[in-house]
């Protein structure tokens, strides 16, 4: 992948991922050597930080557990301060594929979008979610699509690439409760462009999603509320530093 002199950072939020993190970093270094890797250790109680460092990734340790939103935002702040042109979000649990990163960055390079989301549900690569999870994702995507008045197939995907303007926005303000769907609405409110590209993901190999099937309905209601609230918030001013 030739970035034409521009710099890319892969933000890997990790919470108690000691078992998987080394593997994830090796995957990134093998398939995306053109990007720097930043692991944001979200106050893990296991050896996530040590494993990440010994695998050769730059690692930042948060002194308290901030949740996925706070961890990812730390990465965006780092990307912003260090002048990166592109920042990827890449889960520390191994469900995303480093080989697919070029697909994400291409629309940014061509100036077609400010935020690119890897979707499990765009053809031709098929889906990996099942059962109630799929119903939940469909519901959220319907809601977000209605708000944005365009089709969004995978609003909960955390496999993303952000351009300089989106980095600048997220460094200043990033949703904390349900950041993936909320940030789509936020980006839209801010007048930035989002693009979805097909991206297959692996099944979670270990552990499970932060969403239990038990509290599914309650969760849906909270996400719906958070997403709608995000649509009501007024945009924040982005200064010239965004367009470097």
């Amino acid at each position, binding site marked *: 992948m030739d970035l034409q002199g521009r710099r890319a950072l892969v933000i890997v939020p990790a919470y108690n991922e000691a078992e998987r993190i080394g593997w994830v970093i090796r995957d990134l270094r093998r398939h995306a050597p053109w990007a720097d890797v930043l692991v944001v250790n979200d106050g893990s109680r296991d050896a996530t930080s040590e494993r990440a460092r010994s695998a050769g990734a730059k690692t930042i340790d948060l002194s308290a557990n901030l949740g996925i939103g706070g961890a990812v*935002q730390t990465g965006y702040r780092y990307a912003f301060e260090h002048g990166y042109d592109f920042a990827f979000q890449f889960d520390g649990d191994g469900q995303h594929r480093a080989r697919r990163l070029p697909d994400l960055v291409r629309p940014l390079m061509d100036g077609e979008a400010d935020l690119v989301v890897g979707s499990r549900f765009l053809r031709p690569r098929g889906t990996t979610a099942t059962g109630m999870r799929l119903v939940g994702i469909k519901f959220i995507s319907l809601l977000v699509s209605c708000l944005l008045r365009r089709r969004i197939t995978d609003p909960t995907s955390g496999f993303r690439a952000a351009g300089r303007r989106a980095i600048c926005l997220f460094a200043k303000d990033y949703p904390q409760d349900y950041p993936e769907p909320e940030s789509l609405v936020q980006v839209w409110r801010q007048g930035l462009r989002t693009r979805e590209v097909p991206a297959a993901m692996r099944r979670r190999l270990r552990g499970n999603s932060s969403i239990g099937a038990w509290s599914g309905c309650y969760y849906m209601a909270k996400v719906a509320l958070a997403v709608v609230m995000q649509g009501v918030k007024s945009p924040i001013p982005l200064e010239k530093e965004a367009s470097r």
Partner: protein
Amino acid sequence: MSLVQDVMLLVLAIVLLGSTLGLIRNRRLREEYALLWVCTGLMLLAFAAFPTTIFTVAQWLGINHVVLMMLPCFLFLMAIVMHYSVVITKHSDCERSLVQETALLKDEVRELQEQVRSLLSSAGQGGKTDSPRPPDRK
């Protein structure tokens, strides 16, 4: 108002004022909030000392049932709770930002330490080898 009610109100006012003063003395209450509770306590004390004032106030507000004086009290409490929600939001944002900032600074310190170390070692070797890249943080 009966004597019992009056005494109860008096006791309540004194307890409120007393605990406010106690908290201020122990520096566990900020002046901003202390003022609010002192005012509330004094108001209760005034109502206890001069029970007729509560009827007068009710009349001003066009409330002809004293029990309905609960309504302004309720609104007052709602406003306080709302205020606290705002304060909590502000504090959690601030806290998150601080955690992030310290983590970023810790990383920068680590970077600088490494640069100093490599500078020192290269100076020891007669100043040869490549000089480390300066940090491009603004």
